[in-house]
């Protein structure tokens, strides 16, 4: 029972669309004082789960969309053939085997649903579709589930004729239902198949209801009675005994003895659990399809797609055939992919519904109420908009447009195919995924790719399951306060299901990281992962757990002040390195990063930006290391630079209190540029993630082509002396120094004495020791500007040849080299004040080169 995608109807991927209106909620507030969540959002949240269900006898949920005016639109896999259209063909004895097979397939589907806590309550002939290979698929099975057992809509769910009698007899109640009520519906369907016609087709609604109810008082077999009513009593004896048995069991009046689908399957078909019942084991919950099949297909596609798939010109006859072949391949992709591509190609479900005249609505101006009282009671609504449920409005909306015009669709398709294969090969394809992600990350696979980049491995599900998320803890209250304030513009995250998942993931993190505490902001950090892995809490949790040590190492300690202060001090130095003017201005008004940047870094900007922007930002962040976020911070300041430069302290506070719009594309680009043009050692921190991880990260960075500009040293040097390495500076010192320090390693790489890397020097070396020391031995190409004699009283440089050199090289990195004392630091700060960019100080001064044979006597240098 493999989901056979090869036999799918050629040339048309069909999607069924059903839609309905959820009931409007009354105008009240919840206990927490916040407005209540609209029912449509609640439905949207609940229905996400349905998308993760995959079974050969269920039609796949593809998308659920929330429209205006509380309308919910559901897109599912669809086939034109259903049992109603084929009803006549089932007549006759020879079809009984087939009917029995249908019965068992439906029971299989129902059993799978029950195992996932779902009751269908909506079975009828039309909702049983037949695909090309004769597999029965239950359509629209999630309506009762997604509406929280019918509570979120005003209309009753189900077709009266097929509804089990106990449902009608226990009053109009909404709530969880007994599984066996679907079995009854199946019984009625089987009866209709057996007799080849619909029962009670002449009866009016009230008669049908009464008829169903009266069956409870039926003496003897309901099946026989139905047959007699429709004048087919002879069928009872002719019937295949197994089928007769099945129908009899289904039409048992007592819901308890009727039995659940799984019981019936066990009793009648001897089927215990089968392999096809298990959900995908893949941690990424990738649509379950035959893997082997797919890889073969996609490799064929690889061959034919790039040139031909979307080539729609009629003139090029030679490629026609090839193009046709590849179109078929397109249809072999999973439904979700086809739907995604269809949307990219301009497909729009709303437009499709409108085109078919299904969402006709009275013009708004005609449906206004006449008046409304203070209490909100409206009178004389001109048109009483009913919340109508269109039960089976099916449009074959998505005749996949064969002419797909836009280039980027082709590109996306290409990327999807590529990543599809890479992800399947994970973890062996780790480095390939990383390399491809540098280009871009296709949105369709973002969740999976992020998990790969965060190197999730093992069995996230059982780890997550074993964490106790139920027992109350002291942080519960804070979590509950924070969640309804976190990215609530998003429909998924604002739904009650979203809140619940949020809470579970956060609690799981708090429980499993006892060394850390819950800081406000963790909720924002969790939001992107939860959004991407909405149906996969364990993966969201794993990503969060992997993300924090990598990018926010120790940020969530109970006392994180040292870590944050160091981080912010580094941030200040980074600003000074790239933008001295801004630094000088901010220093002069006393606007320090502590005042605005803590939420930025503590949440990796997830508190500052909306989700769609975070995605683009993190796409890059996940490829870099923890210092990349400093660059993002600076890139944001770049965009606000002008306002900051002309603002005083109060205006700056006001500006950041409500972050203005930031162009994220520019921000991403700028931060990559900053990252690439900053020597790594200048960003070195004491509280970086432990070296093991760091090394790995470092190696990865060095393999990528985009990220490492040629100004960066990227091969790890086999340095003999540890003195050349960077070592963390105590926080107190760090806070004192405005300019960052550069390590000997980076220094040498940038100096590039052998001219192997750069044609032009990237760096000016300023030696601030006194003249004598300098002449005794100095770094080649360095210029001597003794600290004591270089500045006039007002802080400006006293003009010399060296100053001219410095001025003409403005924009290059200026490395200030000194002795043990603080003259180099002071000199650097004096230069900073004069708005020289890119100043750094050589860590531990000239001494580190004494042992090597780098230093030369300047007079000899001039002779060269």
């Amino acid at each position, binding site marked *: 029972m493999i989901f056979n995608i090869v036999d799918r109807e050629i040339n048309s991927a069909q999607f069924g669309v059903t839609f309905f209106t959820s009931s409007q909620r009354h105008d009240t507030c919840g206990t927490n004082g916040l407005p209540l969540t609209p029912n449509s959002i609640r439905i949207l949240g609940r229905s996400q789960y349905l998308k993760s269900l995959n079974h050969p006898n269920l039609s796949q949920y593809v998308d659920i969309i929330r429209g205006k005016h509380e309308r919910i639109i559901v897109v599912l896999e669809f086939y034109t053939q259903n049992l109603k259209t084929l009803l006549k063909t089932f007549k006759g004895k020879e079809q009984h085997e087939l009917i029995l097979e249908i019965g068992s397939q439906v029971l299989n589907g129902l059993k799978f649903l029950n195992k996932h806590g779902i009751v269908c309550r909506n079975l009828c002939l039309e909702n049983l579709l037949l695909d090309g290979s004769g597999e029965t698929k239950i359509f629209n099975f999630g309506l009762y589930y997604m509406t929280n057992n019918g509570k979120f809509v005003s209309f009753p769910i189900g077709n009266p004729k097929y509804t089990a009698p106990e449902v009608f007899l*226990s009053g109009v109640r909404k709530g969880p239902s007994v599984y066996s009520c679907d079995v009854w519906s199946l019984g009625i369907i089987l009866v209709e198949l057996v007799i080849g016609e619909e029962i009670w087709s002449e009866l009016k*609604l009230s008669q049908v209801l009464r008829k169903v109810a009266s069956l409870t008082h039926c003496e003897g077999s309901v099946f026989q009675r139905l047959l007699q009513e429709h004048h087919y009593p002879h069928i009872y004896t002719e019937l295949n005994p197994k089928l007769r048995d099945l129908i009899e069991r289904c039409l048992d009046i007592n819901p308890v003895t009727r039995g659940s689908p799984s019981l019936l399957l066990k009793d009648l078909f001897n089927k215990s659990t089968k392999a096809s019942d298990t959900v995908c084991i893949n941690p990424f919950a990738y649509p379950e399809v035959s893997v082997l099949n797919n890889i073969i297909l996609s490799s064929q596609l690889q061959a034919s797609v790039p040139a031909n798939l979307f080539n729609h010109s009629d003139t090029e006859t030679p490629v026609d055939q090839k193009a046709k072949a590849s179109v078929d391949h397109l249809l072999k992709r999973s439904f979700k992919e086809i739907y995604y591509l269809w949307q990219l190609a301009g497909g729009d479900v709303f437009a499709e519904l409108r085109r078919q005249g299904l969402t006709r609505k009275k013009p708004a101006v005609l449906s206004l109420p006449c008046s409304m*009282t203070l209490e909100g009671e409206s009178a004389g609504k001109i048109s009483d908009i009913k919340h109508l449920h269109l039960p089976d409005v099916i449009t074959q909306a998505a005749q996949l447009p064969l002419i797909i015009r836009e280039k980027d669709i082709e590109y996306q398709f290409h990327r999807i195919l590529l990543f599809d294969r890479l992800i399947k090969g994970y973890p062996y394809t780790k480095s390939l995924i990383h390399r491809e992600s540098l280009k871009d990350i296709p949105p369709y696979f973002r969740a999976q790719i992020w998990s790969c980049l965060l190197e999730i491995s093992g069995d996230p599900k059982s780890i997550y399951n074993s964490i106790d998320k139920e027992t109350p803890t002291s942080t519960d209250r804070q979590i509950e306060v924070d969640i309804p304030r976190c990215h609530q*513009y998003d429909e998924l995250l604002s739904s009650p299901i979203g809140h619940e998942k949020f809470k579970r993931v956060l609690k799981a993190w708090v429980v499993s990281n006892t060394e850390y505490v819950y800081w406000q902001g963790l909720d924002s950090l969790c939001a992107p992962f939860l959004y991407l892995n909405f149906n996969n809490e364990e993966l969201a949790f794993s990503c969060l757990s992997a993300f924090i040590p990598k990018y926010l190492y120790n940020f969530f300690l109970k006392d994180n002040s040292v870590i944050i202060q160091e981080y912010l001090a580094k941030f200040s130095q980074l600003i000074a390195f790239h933008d001295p003017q801004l630094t000088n201005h901010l220093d002069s008004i006393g606007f320090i990063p502590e005042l605005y940047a803590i939420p930025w870094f503590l949440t990796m900007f997830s508190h500052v930006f909306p989700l769609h922007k975070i995605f683009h930002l993190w796409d890059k962040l996940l490829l870099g290391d923890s210092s990349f976020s400093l660059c993002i911070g600076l890139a944001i300041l770049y965009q606000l630079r002008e306002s900051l430069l002309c603002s005083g302290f109060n205006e700056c506070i006001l500006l950041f209190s409500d972050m203005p719009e930031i162009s994220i594309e520019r921000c991403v680009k700028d931060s990559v540029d900053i990252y690439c043009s900053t020597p790594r050692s200048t960003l070195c921190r004491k509280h970086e993630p432990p070296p093991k991880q760091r090394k790995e990260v470092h190696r990865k960075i060095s393999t990528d082509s985009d990220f490492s500009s040629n100004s960066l040293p990227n091969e790890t040097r086999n340095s003999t002396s540890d003195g050349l390495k960077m070592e963390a500076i105590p926080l107190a010192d760090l806070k004192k120094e405005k300019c960052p320090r550069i390590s000997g390693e980076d220094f040498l790489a940038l100096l590039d004495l052998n001219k192997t890397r750069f044609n032009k020097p990237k760096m000016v070396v300023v030696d601030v020791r006194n003249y004598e020391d300098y002449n005794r031995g100095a770094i080649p190409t360095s210029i001597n500007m003794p600290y004591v004699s270089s500045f006039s009283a007002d802080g400006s440089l006293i003009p010399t040849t060296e100053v001219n050199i410095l001025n003409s090289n403005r924009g290059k990195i200026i490395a200030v080299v000194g002795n043990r004392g603080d003259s180099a630091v002071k000199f650097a700060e004096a230069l900073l004040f004069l708005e020289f960019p890119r100043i750094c100080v050589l860590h531990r001064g000239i001494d580190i080169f004494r042992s090597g044979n780098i230093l030369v006597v300047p007079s000899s240098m001039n002779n060269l």
Partner: protein
Amino acid sequence: MSKIKDNQVILNLELQLRDSLVKLEIPVELPFEETKIPEFTQLIITSFDLPIIVEDDIAKKLSEFVEKENLNYLTKIWKIDEDNVDQNIKVWEQSFRDETLQYNPPEVVGDDEVFAEAYHSLVHSPMLGTLLRKESALNSTIREMHRMKNQEISILNEKQALEMSNATSNMNSTTTDVNTLATIHFEEAHMVQTRWQSLIESENLKQKREFRDWVVRNYQDYFIEAEELSKKGGKKKHSVRFDESLMISYGDEDTSSSNTEEHILQESFTIHLGSQMKQMYNIRLLCTHPIDFLRFRNESSRELSPQRLQTAISLYSTDLSGIVLLTSPDISIYNGNTKGLMELTQQTTEFHFDNLESQLENRPRKLKPGDFVVTRHSNVNGAHVIFHLVVDLDALNKIEINSRHPVILGLRNILKTACLNDITTITIPALLVHEMAEVMTVSWCNRRAELVYKCVKGFMIEMASWGGAEMKNLQFLAPKDISEEVFSSLAAMLPNIFRVSNPLRLSTSSSSHSLQHQLSH
């Protein structure tokens, strides 16, 4: 396990560990979701510190237990209610009949809707020019009648004034004579008024009928036939002629009139609301009386007015405009703003809706502050929908109000109605008054505007959860006669309250344009 709730049952687990039999009692809450079984199993293992080896055993027992108990529990809930069988079935029937399309086919499309569809289609087709010219021609007939009526009345007035002065100057005439003459005059004037009134009214009716027929007929000719033809494979019969008259010029003859046009103090902002996801809105503050605001300006008989074009195009769209008009509880068409509105709407025929008087007749008899009545219009400028918000005008001028005041709550209901009915532009009196009075000092104005701004901002944020249309344009009207000083302080308050977060910046090469600042007067 001190107390057991109604929906709790005890799971008795017996586990064979290496050398001992362990008995556990675990309370399970029903209905228990099957999907939670693996997690619950883990919870049992960790909380009783059991060896991992029993995991499968527990999971199996738990799932059997859950299946059994869920069934028991649900059967109990869905117990057949023998006593009320009939009643229950009736309720079911009703609910199927009311709520599902299967048993409740959509209503027959009403005349209004047919007309709306036809009009909307024509307005968005090359027929637009023809249609507007048709409207314009009909409008000028009415205007001509108004002119003739006024002319006749003024001639009559002159004549009567002459007669009266003759009568009073004539020594012979007694007071009785003068009184009689006055009565006669009054009756004459009344006669003329009534005659014209009924003439205009019948002309209105005639025009409305004519116009609607014309629209539906043209729609059929233009669309239905074209559709049928295209089905047969033919081409559209009606070739589309470029319509020069549609080129709305702000021509030379208009310059004279627009010069006389009074200048309106106004200022507008573009704001971003929301902490992470920014939503963009336009906010505009202008100094004008609502009735003046609703009047079409720069109209000449020869050219199509851009305002009318705008009104027509959006009338049946999902981008409606609304305005809040304050009114006293009696909403009388003989005084106050309603009278002004009445005169305004009578200028031309209302082709789409009932006239104001009959729309207002439908209102509930007793109205209190905070209630509002809705009327719909196609022949006023800048609003399709007018919310007549009932206030106690005198009291409102004097007292300080807070955010729980009925008027504010009424404003919230209006915004909600607007949001749910695709009204995306709304105009609100910034001070909750239309005319200035003695008591309204500068500080009073500032306090009142602050309250209104803040409340409206709150409602806008709340609006996201109402699931309707997004408000796009928000306009505040300040009374015409406020001083420039007050106006600029009201305007300055807007960016502060609506968090136009960037301070005023006059640089041109800015990267983020959170604020566009315009001042025109």
